[in-house]
């Protein structure tokens, strides 16, 4: 650490804060509610936070921005009492403390956190999850589930979330789980609410609702910390923005005083040119043909074709059955009828093993559940589906070759890890996502299916991934892309199949595609606020069990 540089930097950023505040609309709440000063946190081999500052003013929404692995979640974990800092001090409401001892203490001090990686108790009901650790008790002993239920209904209604509190968490979609987590955080009546990528898996409708909630919290004079990689959300909701880069504090800015390009430059310290790469290559023959694929209760008669070099988008609301379709193609949950042809050869659709053998790849949408083996290291995770290729017929591993392969992908995707031997669980969320991408790219597929591939990935990495996908297509891979981000679908795809309630309802060519048109087909009605009439678009079962 070079001390002089540090001080000058802090001095500089201090000015930025001053400037930002002076330009703010309301000069009254000068005294910050929370101040974190000179926080450092080191992990073996990594400096996650290097002398960073952070402060919150009541009644303002504070966005925390930075690339994957910049240290955002780490700082929030410190604030929520889950990690202790190596250095630095925390002032909460003027009171100084070295660190927060435990999550419990954080909650008592009015700090609630919605975690980036959801960890609900899947076998419990929504109500039980909401009040986990503070169950209502009757006569000091018996859990009062009726009262809990009542409270849960009130809470969910209050937030406008349409959910039965008796449903098991396992039956919910990731988006719905996230709404439960949000409801839980709100219910603590905390003064500081941390939202670490709360919208990485929710529908636009749920995002609207979340924004309403955030607006209300702000009106009540609470501090909201909002972490996201979605630029439009930052500018829609935040009042001020703090930027981290590589574990260092870069500055705090008024949202009004900065534009998207400037913000990106602060985050990545380089200029990003076009987000979506140009596609110039010719399309080849049909590679993947899906014919009247049906799984009862999930989707029916879905047909489409993807040609070599083509990127086909699957658009639709969350719950439209897109994930189910690709899981059926891949054999995770085999279809009831219909067939899938790869290069004219029928795919059995019985197990992922046979799909991989036919050179299919699937980046699943849930990294913890089906994407990664968290107890294994980065190298092993990347190599996992390629091991048959990386070993002799008798199963003896070619370790050197495997190491070279994985090192290549770690570099190509710029996965931020101390070493390939680092456990993936220690990587930041976005870097974990990159590991999943790497693991499938390493299988050299001829058909590649991406289910929300850029979930939780920063802008810089996103454009790298887009380039990677286009490069793959240019080499003749047929690509299927599922995304809830309209921009991504519109920017990447040659053709878009729109799904609604388990059926393919429209095919839109690149030239004609627009956000409005896609939404029109996806909802079957019109604008985004409508949704399917029975409000069932969240009914997608989130199951991925063989």
């Amino acid at each position, binding site marked *: 650490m070079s001390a002089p540089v540090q001080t000058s930097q802090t001095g500089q950023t201090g000015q930025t804060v001053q400037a930002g505040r002076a330009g703010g609309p309301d000069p009254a709440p000068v005294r910050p509610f929370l101040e974190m000063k000179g926080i450092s946190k*080191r992990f073996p081999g990594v*400096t996650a936070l290097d002398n960073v500052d952070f402060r919150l003013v009541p009644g303002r929404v504070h966005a925390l921005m930075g690339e994957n692995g910049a240290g955002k979640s780490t700082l929030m974990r410190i604030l929520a009492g889950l990690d202790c800092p190596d250095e630095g001090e925390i002032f909460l409401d003027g009171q100084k403390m070295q660190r927060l001892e435990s999550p419990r203490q954080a909650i008592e001090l009015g700090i609630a956190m919605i975690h980036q990686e959801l960890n609900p108790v899947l076998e419990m009901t929504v109500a039980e999850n909401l009040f986990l650790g503070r169950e209502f008790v009757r006569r000091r002993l018996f859990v009062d589930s009726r009262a809990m239920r009542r409270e849960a209904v009130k809470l969910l209604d209050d937030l406008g979330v349409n959910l039965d509190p008796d449903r098991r968490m396992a039956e919910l979609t990731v988006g719905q789980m996230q709404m439960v987590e949000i409801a839980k955080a709100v219910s603590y009546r905390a003064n500081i609410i941390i939202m670490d990528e709360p919208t990485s898996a929710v529908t636009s409708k749920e995002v609207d609702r979340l924004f309403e909630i955030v607006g209300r919290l702000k009106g009540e004079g609470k501090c909201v910390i909002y972490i996201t990689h979605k630029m439009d959300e930052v500018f829609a909701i935040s009042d001020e923005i703090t930027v981290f880069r590589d574990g260092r504090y870069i500055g705090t800015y008024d949202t009004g005083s900065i534009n998207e390009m400037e913000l990106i430059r602060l985050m990545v310290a380089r200029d990003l040119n076009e987000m979506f790469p140009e596609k110039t290559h010719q399309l080849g023959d049909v590679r993947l043909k899906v014919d009247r694929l049906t799984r009862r209760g999930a989707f029916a008669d879905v047909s489409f074709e993807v040609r070599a070099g083509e990127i086909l988008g699957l658009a639709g609301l969350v719950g439209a059955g897109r994930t189910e379709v690709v899981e059926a193609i891949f054999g995770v949950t085999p279809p009831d009828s219909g067939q899938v042809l790869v290069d004219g050869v029928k795919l059995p659709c019985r197990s*992922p093993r046979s799909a991989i053998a036919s050179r299919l790849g*699937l980046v699943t949408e849930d990294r913890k*559940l089906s994407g990664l083996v*968290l*107890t294994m290291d980065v190298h092993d995770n990347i190599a996992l589906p390629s091991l048959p290729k990386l070993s002799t017929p008798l199963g003896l591993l070619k370790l050197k070759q495997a190491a070279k392969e994985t090192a290549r992908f770690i570099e190509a995707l710029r996965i931020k890890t101390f070493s390939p031997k680092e456990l993936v669980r220690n990587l930041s969320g976005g870097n974990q996502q990159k590991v999943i991408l790497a*693991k499938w790219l390493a299988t050299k597929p001829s058909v590649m299916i991406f289910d929300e591939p850029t979930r939780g990935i920063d802008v810089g990495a996103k454009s790298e991934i887009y380039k990677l996908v286009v490069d793959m297509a240019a080499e003749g891979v047929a690509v299927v892309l599922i995304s809830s981000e309209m921009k991504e679908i519109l920017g990447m795809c040659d053709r878009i199949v729109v799904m609604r309630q388990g059926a393919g309802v429209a095919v839109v060519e690149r030239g004609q595609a627009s956000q409005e048109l896609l939404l029109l087909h996806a909802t079957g009605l019109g604008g985004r606020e409508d949704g399917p009439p029975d409000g069932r678009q969240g009914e997608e079962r989130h199951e991925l069990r*063989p």
Partner: protein
Amino acid sequence: MSSALSRSLEGESRPAFDWKQFLLKYNIVVVLLLICVALSVYTDRFLNQENIINITRQVSINGILAIGMTMVVLTAGIDLSVGSLVAFSGVVTAVLLRDHHWPILMVVPMSLAAGMLLGSVNGYFVAYWRAAPFVVTLAMMTAARGMTFVYSKGRPISPLPAEFLFLGKGSLGPVPIPVIIFLLTFLAGYVILRHFRIGRYIYAVGGNETAAVVSGINIKLVKVFVYSFSGLLCGLAAVILTARVSAGLPQAGQSYELDAIAATVIGGTSLSGGRGRLWGTLIGALLLGVVNNGLDLMEISSFYQQIVKGVIILGAVLIDSKRHGS
């Protein structure tokens, strides 16, 4: 790559040697060494060639079983049938030798096959019926014990040919044959886990079964493999045991499964699967052996020995949960 990374690599902020990290990582090695030092200070009967060889000989059977157990536990399973399979294979071995006069070179593979067969039955039910490993192997533990008693009519089977007894009692130079077999088994287990595809699959299945399936791994095969391998090692341990006690005993191997689990857990393998190292199990087995030996040397009754063993197991698990805490 990132500057934060290079900074921390060169930076003086990071001490050259992180004692805490080291101790947490190699805690059992340190504990084992401490106990050895303490014992050699306490009594001069501990640190001599004869005693050390004696310890390794005693450790070898549990060590062999613990290797199979480690693989099972790595897939988030457990094998309670180990002791019964040892007894079963041992009786099969003894009957083939005494009543059918089979040559040793054929008897040994038969013992391994007998263990592996029952082990694969475990694996079949765990993998294809998705039955809980605890229950399946508990049933096998009871059933195999019963089969052993039926087959042997409840009587010890002896005498056995002298050449066979060499496998349990003999030595190659100073090194007892069982120890050689143990070390070879360890090597085989290590190579399987580190250098073979199936090894990675074992870790993957225990770490996240769904992700393993999606990655194209045949998880059923992996499960059948680990239980069969554990059974096979039971057959191997049975050969040594039968040769050592000069008889096929139907009541042999009682609570061997618990010792094997203990060695595995002390060695740092997580019972929830996906995490653990084979060398840890080796040290765990040695630790148990040294402690038993030490308490013997100190002439402490075997009742107390059990208490000490319990404390060690608990201690190991506590250290482990501290290491992987939060």
